[in-house]
């Protein structure tokens, strides 16, 4: 079955009222789950899994898939409105999205995020259709050495996240990396820094930390405010202006590409595409100082990358039968329970499911756009609620949301502690985003480094003799050198100033 034939076949199957209903249900639930901090698509999908038994496999998958990318749409909402990442991948959106909200530009932020997600999602589905198979084979070339080098490249980008002192950012990165080592060592199984708590065996959870560092710390910072709303100025517009769109289109296109390609790597999706998009946009922007203060590209790029990434994650799933992240693993399991083995032969054996899912993604993206745009007016009104009412509500959502992930109060503890840590660090002039990203990337980097050495029998040459790895390392080295030089120059200047003032 050729591609267009397949697509038509898929659409024929999908454009039935009952399947459309399940698609709609999925994206609505997904959006809701995304908006609620803490509970993520994994929890929602696990809970709804039993209810999908009565459905046909296609309906079940379409609904569950809808929950997944619906959650990506919704996750940006709380990031922008109250600086709480609705789910892990939306952390980067907090950086500029929330600043835009404070300046009365929450509407454009939400709008561009919906539009960007739509474009990113749609472009990714198109890419998925055409190049899924060859691409997944190419992606297989990424082994431990390549991943390590990719992580090195990402590490060299992290310092771009910081607005202020790069030196402080580096300290934050190191702390983040150290936090990433908590838990069972992936190679030897040795439990590191876990203080006897079985919760910490899996490492410090990403979601409690993100919610604490961004959400709780924000509340702690605002607590001495008297009568106030989150808004610092009047609300300017509800929808993105033409100027906004013009500025963002580049970010959106780049975000789609970045999201899709990184999303399809094993372990794909999640925060990595969003953070790479953000740092890329900041690097090539004509006004990098706006970033961190409400630059719309800082929202458009990452949000697009987010959605494109989650669609890209379907590539290994549909082409190789390998779910690259825990969310898709649930989808995989759901298929299994319906007796469908989503292996490499999915397209041949179950074309109705394969093309049905792809067709449903187009439909789902459109539904989400139509659903989210009108809601923007509603969300913006939330910002007008007096803070004394809003603050307890936010806290309740955070506390319950965090608890609801695993019904584990220790995770709530972690969230609160990181809230306190985040508060102290922010007041003292340190930035949190580098720490969080480092915490996520650290374990990847270490595991792949050690695995690479295992494969090469201890030889470090493996990183350079393999072409992809070598290219990535050289790129990382260049970035390190250029940012290192600029830091050196800056510090020299600062020390000069100090010495001069000392005289």
């Amino acid at each position, binding site marked *: 079955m050729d591609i267009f034939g397949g697509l038509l076949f898929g659409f024929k199957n999908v454009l039935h009222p009952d399947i459309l209903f399940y698609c709609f249900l999925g994206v609505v639930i997904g959006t809701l789950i995304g908006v609620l901090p803490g509970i993520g698509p994994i929890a*929602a999908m696990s809970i709804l899994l039993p209810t999908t038994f009565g459905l046909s496999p296609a309906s079940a998958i379409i609904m569950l898939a809808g929950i997944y990318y619906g959650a990506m749409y919704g996750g940006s909402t709380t990031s922008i409105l109250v600086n709480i990442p609705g789910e892990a991948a939306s952390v980067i959106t907090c950086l500029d999205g929330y600043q835009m909200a404070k300046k009365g530009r929450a509407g454009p932020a939400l709008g561009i995020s919906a539009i960007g997600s739509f474009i990113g999602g749609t472009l990714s589905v198109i890419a998925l259709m055409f190049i899924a198979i060859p691409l997944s084979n190419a992606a297989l070339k990424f082994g431990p050495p390549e991943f390590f080098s990719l992580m090195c490249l990402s590490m060299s980008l992290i310092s771009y996240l910081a607005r202020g002192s790069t030196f402080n950012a580096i300290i934050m990165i190191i702390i983040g990396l150290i936090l990433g080592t908590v838990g069972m060592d992936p190679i030897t199984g040795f439990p590191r820094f876990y203080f006897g708590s079985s919760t910490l065996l899996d490492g410090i959870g990403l979601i409690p930390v993100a919610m604490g560092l961004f959400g709780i710390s924000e*509340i702690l910072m605002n*607590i001495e405010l008297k009568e106030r709303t989150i808004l610092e100025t009047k609300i300017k517009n509800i929808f993105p202006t033409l100027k906004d769109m013009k500025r963002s289109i580049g970010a959106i296109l780049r975000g789609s590409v970045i999201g899709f390609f990184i999303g399809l790597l094993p372990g794909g999706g999640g925060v990595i595409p969003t953070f790479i998009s953000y740092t890329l946009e900041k690097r090539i922007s004509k006004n990098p100082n706006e970033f961190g203060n409400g630059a719309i590209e800082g929202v458009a790029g990452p949000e697009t990358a987010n959605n494109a990434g989650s669609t890209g994650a379907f590539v290994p799933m549909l082409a190789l039968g390998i779910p690259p992240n825990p969310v898709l693993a649930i989808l995989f399991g759901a298929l299994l329970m319906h007796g469908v083995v989503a292996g490499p032969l999915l397209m041949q054996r179950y074309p109705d499911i394969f093309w049905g899912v792809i067709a449903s993604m187009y439909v789902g993206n459109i539904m989400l756009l139509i659903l989210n745009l009108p809601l923007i007016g509603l969300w913006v009104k939330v910002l007008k609620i007096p*803070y004394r009412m809003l603050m*307890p509500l936010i806290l309740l959502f955070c506390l319950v949301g965090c608890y609801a992930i695993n019904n584990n109060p220790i995770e*709530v503890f972690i969230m609160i502690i990181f809230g306190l840590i985040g508060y102290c660090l922010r007041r003292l002039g340190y930035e949190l985003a580098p720490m969080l990203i480092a915490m996520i990337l650290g374990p990847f980097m270490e595991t792949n480094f050690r695995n690479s050495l295992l494969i090469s029998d201890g030889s470090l040459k493996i990183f350079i003799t393999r072409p992809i790895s070598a290219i990535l390392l050289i790129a990382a080295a260049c970035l390190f050198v250029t940012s290192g030089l600029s830091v050196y120059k800056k510090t020299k200047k600062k020390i000069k100033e100090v010495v001069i*003032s000392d005289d």
Partner: protein
Amino acid sequence: MVNPNTFLIVILVSLGISISIYSYKIGIGSINNPGPGLFPFLLGSLLFLLSLYKINIFFKKKRLDETTHVRLFFKKLFALLFLLFFYAIFIDLIGYIFTTFITFSFIFRIAGYKNWFKIITYTICIMFISYLGFTYLGVRLPQGLLKMVY
């Protein structure tokens, strides 16, 4: 009050040292055959060195305008933190409804409401709505003391 900046640097330095020592103990292996401690050891040492460097800069800059004296802690902050920890500790013990009720009454107070009648009303409202809402979404909230009622 201790200057929070200095306090932080002291914490960083001690963290650096303790992490390095712990990592060394659990075995660092060699660069060609890393043990579980290698990575944390390098990180701990780096942290230690960087914090030392920071002390260096800091002393040089002391007369400049860096946020040297920042007041970090307020009564309200402590109260709120206490309530949050209270919530985490007791939610499993006495259950969602009671913990939420007690904690959020005080949170509303801290947030700025003075009228207790309003506070209690708001708390009860959000308590029920959230309980029903979350339970509908499939989240199992702990019963705690409610078990005795059954």
